[in-house]
């Protein structure tokens, strides 16, 4: 990983070469990374490695013609070649109709989501942690499989107009799937933190093993519409399809779930439960991220859905220019939380007359962008609840469910306290109805 001076020196070198080659405007980014992992299955390590890489990308404009080139070689001759390459592409490219001048100097907040321990993994400590995970699996007579990763990166960017920024970030994660010896039960649990030292491997494996044991020998139920409780992981598996749709341009162009009739968008409509807030905040204590959008706009708290009302959509710099408004200061992460005091998972179950508790979803795909209709399957833990208690495990089910309908004002009964699942802070949800269409034999 490169430090601030090393990274910005590369940026400045490429900018100077681009200018020398005839670029009228230019932007350079330098991304250096180190990634370490250990993967295990069948209660043993299957692969383990470490990789260092560098990505240097420059985008240049000659007039309004654009060219972009990326390489991973920081030698002086390679940097010159990279800049020349981008300029040469620009010279033979058509006019870039969506050109917006690169950013000038801006002030950014401090990036907080980096820990040195994540960048420099202690191999012996990792082996000890994983030995504990596998021992727990053996004691409970389940087969453990999982993934331990620790990644760190530094990203610097600079423009011909004087913008300069440098942020470091890191991410450590452990996920464990436990399967019962006879293959009739399966559990999954994952945790992540920017600081590897804060990863609680024992808690993660215990949750996973507990789910595997409690999900053994599931019974089939008929597909249909059921009340459900989605654990945070299950919400995390779905919510990206909603957050990825919160783009102003596609809504304005009439091809998004947030497109209204007669060329309007649905901003301002109470489309969702009044309990629901979704916002972005780079300084959130539990999920701090780099205080800049990918386009370089300084990030700040930015509300997308407030008490169920669609408050804002994301505007890129180009689309903001087209619509004569400001580019939005996010989203850079998504915090999904209740506008009212949160309800614990236990209380959600206690208050349920009949329904299902869902651990996780798998192979979720968008079937129809108009309603954000999704299909996918439950996986690694599904239980039947009756009279406020979990009764027995249930066979996995395929669902076909619209996200707009799922989060509609009439369908959200309770929202839990959010948990970290980068890039989300995501809560459990209690829903009046969720549509299942067939049974799966998979465990």
């Amino acid at each position, binding site marked *: 990983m490169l430090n601030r001076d090393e990274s910005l020196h590369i940026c400045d070198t490429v900018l100077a070469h681009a200018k020398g080659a005839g670029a009228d405007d230019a932007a350079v980014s330098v991304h250096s990374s180190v990634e370490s992992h250990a993967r295990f299955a069948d209660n043993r390590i299957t692969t383990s490695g470490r990789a260092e890489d560098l990505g240097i990308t420059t985008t240049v404009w000659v007039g309004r013609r654009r060219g972009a080139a990326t390489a991973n070689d920081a030698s002086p001759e390679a940097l010159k070649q990279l800049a020349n390459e981008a300029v040469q592409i620009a010279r033979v490219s058509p006019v870039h109709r969506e050109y917006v001048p690169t950013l000038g100097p801006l002030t950014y907040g401090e990036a907080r989501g980096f820990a040195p321990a994540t960048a420099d993994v202690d191999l012996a400590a990792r082996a000890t942690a994983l030995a504990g995970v596998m021992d727990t699996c053996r004691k409970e007579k389940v087969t453990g499989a999982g993934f331990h*990763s620790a990644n760190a990166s530094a990203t610097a960017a600079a423009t011909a107009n004087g913008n300069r920024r440098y942020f470091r970030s890191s991410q450590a994660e452990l996920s464990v799937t436990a399967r019962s010896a006879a293959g009739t039960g399966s559990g999954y649990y994952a945790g992540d933190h920017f600081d590897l030292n804060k990863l609680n491997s024992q808690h993660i494996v215990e949750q996973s093993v507990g789910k595997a044991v409690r999900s053994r020998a599931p019974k089939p139920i008929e597909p249909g519409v059921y009340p459900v409780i989605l654990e945070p992981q299950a919400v995390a598996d779905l919510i990206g399809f909603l957050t990825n749709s919160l783009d102003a341009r596609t809504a304005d162009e009439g091809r998004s779930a947030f497109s209204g009739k007669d060329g309007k968008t649905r901003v301002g409509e109470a489309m969702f439960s009044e309990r629901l807030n979704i916002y972005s905040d780079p300084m959130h204590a539990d999920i701090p991220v780099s205080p800049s959008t990918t386009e370089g706009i300084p990030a700040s708290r930015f509300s997308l859905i407030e008490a169920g009302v669609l408050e804002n959509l994301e505007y890129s710099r180009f689309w903001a220019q087209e619509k004569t408004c400001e580019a939005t200061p996010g989203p850079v992460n998504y915090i999904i939380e209740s506008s009212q005091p949160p309800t614990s998972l236990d209380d959600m179950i206690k208050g349920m007359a009949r329904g299902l508790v869902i651990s996780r979803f798998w192979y979720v795909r968008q079937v129809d962008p108009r309603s954000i209709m999704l299909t996918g399957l439950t996986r690694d833990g599904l239980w039947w609840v009756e009279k406020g208690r979990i009764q027995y495990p249930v066979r996995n089910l395929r669902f076909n469910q619209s996200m707009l309908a799922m989060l509609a004002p009439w369908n959200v009964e309770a929202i839990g306290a959010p948990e970290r699942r980068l890039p989300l802070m995501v809560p459990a949800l209690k829903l009046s109805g969720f549509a299942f269409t067939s049974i799966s034999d998979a465990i």
Partner: protein
Amino acid sequence: MAIPPVSRRQFIATGSALLAATYVPDWADAFQPGPADDARRAEAAEVALARATALGATYADIRINRYRRESIATRERQVRNVSRSASYGLGLRLLVNGAWGFAATNVVDAASARAAAEQAVAIAKANAVLVTRKVVLANADKVVTTWANPIKRDPFEVPLDTKTAFLMKLNETAMAVPGVSFVNSQILFVDEQKYFASTEGSRITQRLVRTYPQFSVTAADRASGDFQARPVVDRAQLMGYEYVEDYPWFQDAEKAGHEVVEKLTSKPVVPGRYDIVVDPSQLFLAIHESVGHSTELDRALGWEANMAGTSFLKPTDAGTLRFGAKIVNLVGDRTQPGGLATTGYDDEGVKSERWHLVRDGMFVDWQTTRELAPLVGQQRSHGCLHADDWSSVPFPRMPNVSLEPAATEVSLDELFSGVKRGLFVEGRGVSSIDQQRYNFQFGGAVIREITNGKLGGMVKDAAYQSRTPDFWASCDGLGGPATYRLWGTSADGKGEPGQTNAVSHGCPPARFRNVTVLNTGAA
């Protein structure tokens, strides 16, 4: 087959010298490494392998790969982006005390290679305390050779304006259809230059060139707020620029324009049970998901349990389990011309081959690597180890998995003729399948009714849902050799850290009886 010689000189000699001189040189030079680069690469490999051996590795292999990509993205009448990328680096894998270690770096020289060996050994030694079963590799031949896929025209030497003009004409063709609102198109070229060396003496140099054209046409009705898309996205092949020049792309674009306009006003499907005829443009994906992934031995052994999942097939099922109807024959094939997973040698130096996974409806064999083959009593690997980058750990990946056509010619109309009430499914829709590859749901880009053997109007919001063994058991008709087509997916995800694999599936159209069809339009 030898790697084609430096072709920049040839290109300049074709008569475009002035234009070529203005924009090709740096790009071409960067990717035509000379003898000094080759020597530095060989030295790095030898240093890494020697250092690994000296530190106690019982086996080591190294991949030193250079990747070059060019991407051009357009929408309607404008070029959105032209970008080129290059990546070069080394990845070393080794066994110490029966445990794997791996280290990779973007700096290719003797000092970095030596450091990578030391890091990989440290990782293997730290993890060796957790070894419960030492890794054993199946035997492989020592190979010293070069290989490249045949290409007629190197896409990296075609002028940029020729490529943008192709995409602009594609967009214009689709936009000329009344009712079409948007067109997005993209073309991506990938050049992989791979060098493999192992402590067993293999030294293999390969070059693979892939061409990925794709586009999507959208029709939007602003008054009602409705919109529909017709993507054409799975046509990538292991070919050069001749694929752009020889295939009738503009015909496809015009057809897609008409289809998306018709789709916007088509009636929703009535859910129920239908006989379905599935075109190769969709069936390839059903094969990929239900056959390609279920016959991966690492999944059956539980090695993917935490991510992609396991398989409904058990390690003991080969040779004993009926997979489908007797007419169903499926092969793994890393030699198929144009196939995205076709290569000369896999990423541990095993020569590519073709073998049956399903013969006469019976499941008979697995996809294997040198580590996997001994675990089911086999002496040799089928050559399925792959890393998607020099920085990635190689692991089991899918070969081209293809469905054999009927022995005699059977036309699409003959497949329709046996259907009273059915649907004909073409193109990629939404696909989803469970983690053991039983329950799946596939949509299509274009779905038409079949009534009394005749193809009728289009329906929308349809998806078919089935269970892998039931689906393949219900197959009662296959197109003949003339109907066989190769389609492929360029981004098959698997593993942790996640890797993508490009893989093709050849097949004829096929008929399946009494399949559940859903209407996915209603909440």
